[in-house]
């Protein structure tokens, strides 16, 4: 009995010790210094899709919804929602006592103004607002979305913060247009508030002491958000060697976008921890379907048959941990993963390509392929693809531009046949740019329109997954794009920063993260 009591006491003491160490470990304080590759153009999330902007702005601004660790939409500023009239009316209830960084309480008036500005001027807004007839306040803490026809992806659209519908005070949103708002208007509801933009030096955020955190458990971007750091400082450091040396020298705590060929060295270095980002990106070659030689579907199929993606990924991303040969347009760990038609992916069959090209009536005409040197991985991939196409008998004219020039030229269907770009991770396929008929490439066939329409109107998730599979099959048959494969960026962080685990999400976030 006495022995049991002693053991129990020791156990209680041990548990208390563990708890006290844990509490001590998660104390608030410190400035997290983040070395990023460049300065973002603006932090206005509604009209800018730069990842650099999102990495910073997600700490300032919040949307009605966000994504959990499974990339399913979950409420953030919303309390919940009700879908009525067969999906034509959605009522979103708002959380109460949420305040903006200027102290004002968020109400339905702010939400309506923010959604309207995003719907009219936001980069991704029109995708959702093509289906919305009206947005109205329903009392102070609820908003009604009136749909012209059911649109199943509305939650995902409201949850995707990059170019997405973040909520700001109505007095700012009512006066905003397509131009990014100015820094003095960076007023959100997030755990950090914007405090300073020292041009060329840093962007600084400070903990918002009156932050109204959710009470549900943190999961992905969802749930409770606790700001442990006093300040977050985002510093532009364009040179990768400087980011690494700066972190090793103790001048930075987190450095983003490391090179693939440094992966092994950095993993072996005990002064840094390596974090692979979960959000898979992929390279894509667009075909000009409006004008020129690539309007020939058979020829596009020939090009698809010619390319083996393994050397492409190897050259561009290096270490195998950083890429997957995945023919499914959506990554493997998502509900959207599909094996439909992926046997046509990465065949590298020059014989078949020649046969298909002959059937297409191809006689060695020049194929203008635009690529960029602004991003090393894009350039490396483009060169290997061009080489393979040349070996398969295509007359490739590889034209190299800086990104700004390429982004401008691709809008002119007269000057190109193929161009290379990349697509960031999206949690719902409706967000893919190549589905837009106005995006360069101009994929706009009756079959595609029908499938996209069915996809957006299906309200059941299983049905949506099925239709997405059909769309993927159509992608491999019609060949509007060529997917290279999934790749993962990786960052490094000093070992004293805790809370990440092995990986980070699409964009690294710094709530629920602390200094040991």
């Amino acid at each position, binding site marked *: 009995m006495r022995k049991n009591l002693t053991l129990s006491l020791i156990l209680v003491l041990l548990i208390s010790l563990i708890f006290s160490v844990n509490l001590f470990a998660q104390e608030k304080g410190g400035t997290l210094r983040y070395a990023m590759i*460049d*300065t973002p*153009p*603006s932090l206005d999330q509604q*009209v*800018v*899709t*730069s990842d650099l902007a999102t990495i910073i702005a997600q700490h300032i601004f919040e949307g009605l919804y966000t994504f959990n660790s499974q990339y399913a939409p979950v409420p953030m500023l919303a309390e919940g929602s009700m879908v009525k009239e067969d999906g034509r009316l959605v009522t979103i209830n708002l959380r109460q006592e949420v305040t903006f960084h200027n102290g004002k309480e968020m109400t339905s008036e702010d939400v309506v103004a923010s959604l309207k500005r995003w719907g009219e*001027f936001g*980069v*991704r807004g*029109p995708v959702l607002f093509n289906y919305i007839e009206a947005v109205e306040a329903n009392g102070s803490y609820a908003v009604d979305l009136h749909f012209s026809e059911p649109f199943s992806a509305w939650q995902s659209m409201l949850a995707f913060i990059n*170019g997405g519908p973040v909520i700001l005070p109505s007095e700012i949103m009512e006066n905003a*247009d*397509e*131009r*990014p708002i*100015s820094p003095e208007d960076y007023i959100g509801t997030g755990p950090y508030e914007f405090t300073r933009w*020292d*041009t*060329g*030096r840093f962007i600084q955020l400070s903990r918002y002491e009156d932050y109204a955190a959710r009470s549900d458990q943190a999961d992905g971007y969802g749930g409770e958000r606790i700001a442990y750091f006093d300040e977050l400082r985002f*510093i*532009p*450091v*364009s*040179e990768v*060697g*400087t980011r690494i*040396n*700066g972190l*090793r*020298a*103790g*001048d930075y705590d987190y450095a983003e976008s490391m090179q693939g060929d440094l992966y092994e060295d950095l993993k072996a270095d005990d002064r840094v921890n390596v974090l692979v980002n979960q959000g898979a990106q992929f390279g894509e070659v667009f075909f000009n379907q409006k004008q020129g030689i690539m309007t020939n579907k058979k020829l596009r199929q020939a090009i698809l048959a010619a390319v083996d993606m393994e050397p492409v990924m190897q050259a561009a991303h290096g270490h195998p941990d950083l890429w997957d040969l995945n023919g499914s347009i959506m990554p493997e760990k998502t509900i959207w993963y599909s094996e439909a038609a992926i046997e046509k992916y990465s065949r590298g069959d020059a014989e078949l390509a020649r046969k298909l090209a002959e059937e297409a009536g191809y006689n060695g005409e020049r194929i203008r392929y635009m690529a960029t040197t*602004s991003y090393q991985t894009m350039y490396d991939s483009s060169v290997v693809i061009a080489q393979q196409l040349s070996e398969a008998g295509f007359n490739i004219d590889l034209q190299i*531009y*800086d*990104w*700004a*020039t390429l*982004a*401008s*030229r691709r*809008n002119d269907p007269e000057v190109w046949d193929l161009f290379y*770009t*990349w697509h960031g991770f999206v949690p719902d396929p409706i967000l893919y*740019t190549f589905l*837009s008929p*106005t*995006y*360069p490439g101009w994929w706009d066939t009756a079959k595609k329109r029908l499938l996209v329409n069915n996809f957006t109107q299906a309200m059941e998730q299983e049905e949506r997954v099925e239709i997405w599979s059909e769309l993927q099959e159509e992608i491999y048959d019609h060949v509007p794009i060529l997917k290279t494969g999934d790749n993962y960026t990786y960052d490094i962080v000093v070992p004293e920063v805790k809370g990440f685990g092995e990986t980070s999400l699409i964009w690294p976030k710094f709530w629920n993260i602390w200094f040991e």
Partner: protein
Amino acid sequence: MWVYTFRRLLTIIPTLLVASIIIFSFMHLMPGDPAAVMLGTNATPEQVERLRTQMGLNRPIYIQFLTWIRGAFVGDLGESIFFQSPVMSVIRSRAETSILIAFFSMILILTIGVPVGVISAVKNNTPLDQFSMGFAMLAASIPTFWLGLNLMIIFSVNLGWLPSSGFPSVIESGNLMNLKYLILPCLTLAAPNSALIIRLTRSSMLDVMSEEYVKTARAKGLKESEVVIKHIFRNAIISVVSALGFTFIALLSGTVVTETVFSLPGVGSLVVQSVLRRDYPVIQGVIFVVVILYVLINLLTDLSYGFLDPRITYD
């Protein structure tokens, strides 16, 4: 001299006008669209077009030019497309770093380049001269990028004596200790430029040393130090001074590699980033300011000849 100075100052106006037309034309001949860069890869052509209209980029080029030049001559260089703030304030925010780097690098260049060049010339063809020339050759041929990263690895990562990168403002914080951020960049920049000044000083000195009046000075029994300083160095320095003027201008605006390696918010990297972003007002504004500086520093260099050599007049 005053008439000369006034005449030279007047030449700034046509120089700026011609430079502005060239800059403006080249900027707008360059393909690429600032609106597309700002909105990102996912923007549709309609959205890009709307933003272009909002920014006034769809107006005829000559109207854009006249608007810009009218503002430029009264000190308003327009608004940065990327930063959404006045170009003058963007340049001002970068000027501190560039001016301090140029200033401290020049001090290093002068204190290394001129004495070593003089000693090398005086001790011509001795081991000391060969050592100096070897050093100059090495300093000139090491790539700035490599030197910068290696200085960083030695002094920041391994020894931990100096910060690796960045530069917090001295003016805003009032903290002179922030100047330590500039030690490695200035050393990196001084190395190749000192080499140039060493070689130039040495060759100018050697040229003058073979002149008859130097032999006369020695024959008169003057002390060797007096011959070297008064008769050789003073006559040889004019070509070095002109090189220093150009070096200073280059350091103010053309230190892109060093600014990139040390992540410094200077004018050089601002120009390169602005070209990539097609931020026309910033590119035009910086070049406008640099042209003014160029003319002014050239004028100062020319005026300094008169002080160094009384035979030079400005009538």
